[in-house]
């Protein structure tokens, strides 16, 4: 494969064959070795062949092989001639991260870490096959899909102010659940307000380093050892079902002939089927926002109970990692509406964008890049360069380098828990095997991922946080 090095952190696959645009990979020599070992680059080339793609197909520093699009893939499509693809969003629609700050320090919670974690474990349902605490009726679920986090706030979960500090203000206006299948709704009903399993987690963290004090302060992060809570989950079975349903619908209606990979199935953005997918995906996005809103509320309750107060536990922000959106971007000398797919990528909007809440508009949006279990996570800030370099996008996590099966063969959950405890990190999980699968050795080095983001300029470092308590779904 023709891979051209542009500079220390940028590589390019020039246009060839059916590619409509080149592919750009933001990575380092070290990360590139891992990327070359799987099908990431071939998948990114396939994306570059899709109708109506604009500028370039982008690959983020944490990229790895997905299905159809690579994970860590970003692509924008023209609204007139372009497409929308469920495989470009992924199965876990609006898998994302919410960060709460506290006014506690590590010292304050030190003796109560275990208690906090145990209590959160009781309050927030996690694991597979177990439903949530609340059971909605069908109409309430439809309302969740329309109103997102707003529904949750109206029903007593959290504060109105949280909405302001959520991507899309916690509600995609384009959402419409009328095309959700009966199955999607059936799966959505028992799972609202649940963390799920796999790579989903909830972490009590402490700030370990602040790189940009001014921006950090705007985000409400002011000192080392300040305690934060990070929630990572998505739209659960409802979102997965929407993806599966529309892949099938598009196949039956349009067919997958000529596609290099059946998961690249797509429909013109403006076609009825494309719009139906967009409305349904947005409904799943809203479901995920409501889900994280409820979990955040329970976490505050636990702090109130154990620590005596949840005062100052403001939401820093809530970001999507798997989504497609119609956004305005300036390229080729004019501002154009495009359908941006971010599959395992975070929006990175710089200062001035109207999509960012006023309180952050002068500095750029907060970005959260969770590491693997037991390792550091990072807070970054969106940039104007990102709008030029990646349709306003950066990485979303560490990215796997080892299959779960291999991790399960090599590691033992019990041992991982012991090791974490030696390092002062409490761990609770529904399953030992689940812990082994998420061993940090199975992931890329998140430090290197954020370094690339920072050096390229698609997301600038603000602070580093490390876990003190981990709840793994």
């Amino acid at each position, binding site marked *: 494969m023709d891979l051209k090095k542009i500079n220390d952190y940028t590589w390019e696959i020039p246009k060839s064959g059916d590619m409509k645009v080149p592919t750009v990979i933001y990575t380092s020599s070290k990360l590139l070795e891992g990327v070359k070992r*799987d099908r990431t680059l071939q998948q990114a080339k396939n994306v570059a062949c899709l109708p109506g793609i604009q500028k370039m197909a982008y690959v983020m520093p944490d990229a*790895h*092989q*997905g*299905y*159809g699009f690579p*994970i860590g893939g970003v692509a924008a499509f023209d609204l007139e001639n372009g497409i929308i693809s469920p495989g470009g969003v*992924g*199965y*876990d629609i609006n898998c994302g991260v919410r960060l709460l700050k506290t006014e506690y320090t590590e010292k304050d919670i030190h003796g109560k870490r275990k208690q906090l974690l145990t209590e959160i474990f009781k309050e927030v349902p996690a*694991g*597979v*096959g*177990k*439903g949530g605490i609340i059971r909605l009726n069908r109409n309430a679920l439809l309302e969740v899909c329309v109103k997102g986090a707003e529904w949750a706030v109206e029903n007593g979960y959290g504060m109105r102010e949280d909405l302001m500090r959520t991507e899309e203000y916690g509600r995609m206006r384009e959402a419409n659940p009328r095309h959700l299948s009966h*199955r999607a709704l*059936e*799966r959505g009903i*028992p*799972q609202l307000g649940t963390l*799920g*399993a*796999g790579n989903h987690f909830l972490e009590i963290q402490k700030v370990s380093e602040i790189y940009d004090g001014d921006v950090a302060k705007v985000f409400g992060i002011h000192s080392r050892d300040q305690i934060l809570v990070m929630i990572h989950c998505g739209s659960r*079975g409802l979102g*997965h*079902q929407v*993806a*599966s349903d529309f*892949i*099938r619908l598009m*196949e*039956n209606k349009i067919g997958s002939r000529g596609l290099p*990979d*059946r*998961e690249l199935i797509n429909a013109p953005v403006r076609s009825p089927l494309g719009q139906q997918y967009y409305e349904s995906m947005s409904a799943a996005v809203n479901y995920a926002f409501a889900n994280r809103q409820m979990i955040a509320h329970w976490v505050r309750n636990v702090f109130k109970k154990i620590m005596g107060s949840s005062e100052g536990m403001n939401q820093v922000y809530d970001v999507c990692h798997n989504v497609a959106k119609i956004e305005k971007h300036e390229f080729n000398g004019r501002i154009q509406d495009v359908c941006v797919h971010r599959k395992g990528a975070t929006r990175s909007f710089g200062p001035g964008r109207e999509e960012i809440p006023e309180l952050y508009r002068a500095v750029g949006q907060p970005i959260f890049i969770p590491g693997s279990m037991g390792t550091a996570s990072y807070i970054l800030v969106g940039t104007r360069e990102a709008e030029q370099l990646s349709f306003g996008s950066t990485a979303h996590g560490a990215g*796997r*380098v*080892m*299959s*779960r*099966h*291999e991790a399960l063969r090599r590691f033992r959950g019990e041992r991982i828990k012991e090791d974490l405890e030696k390092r002062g990190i409490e761990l609770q999980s*529904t*399953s*030992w*095997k*689940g812990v082994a*699968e998420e061993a940090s050795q199975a992931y890329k080095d998140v430090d290197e991922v954020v370094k690339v983001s920072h050096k390229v300029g698609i997301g600038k470092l603000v602070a580093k946080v490390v876990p003190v308590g981990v709840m793994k*779904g």
Partner: protein
Amino acid sequence: MERYRFFAHTADAKFQAFGETLEEAFSNAALATVSLMWDWERIEHKVTHPVEVEGRDLKQLLSGFLEEIIYLLDTKSFLLGFPENIKIEEKENRYTLKALFKGDHYSDRYEIFGDVKAITYNEMEIENSGRFMVQVVVDV
């Protein structure tokens, strides 16, 4: 005969399942999928669910069949122990599959250690070279 075998796949889980018949290969693919979430050999056969799926081709049929496992888990807390009486038929370019899922409802007796989010078409293969082989990558 070996029922299924897993392969390295960075993000997801990739397996091949085998059978003397297409039905047997599908059945073993169901067990492979389940093996990512719980130990199917330890599930008691107390509850049955009849399953019926359709597909425009065999790959769609396979993906629909395996999705039933996740659907029944999410909506009925049903843990598949074994898929019985699988019958695949083709009529005018449409495929249908009927089966009887035997298993149990989730309880504390069972450990669930993984999550299969979805069945993908990525690298999906269905081959017949004397015996049948189906290859599937699932999103976990």
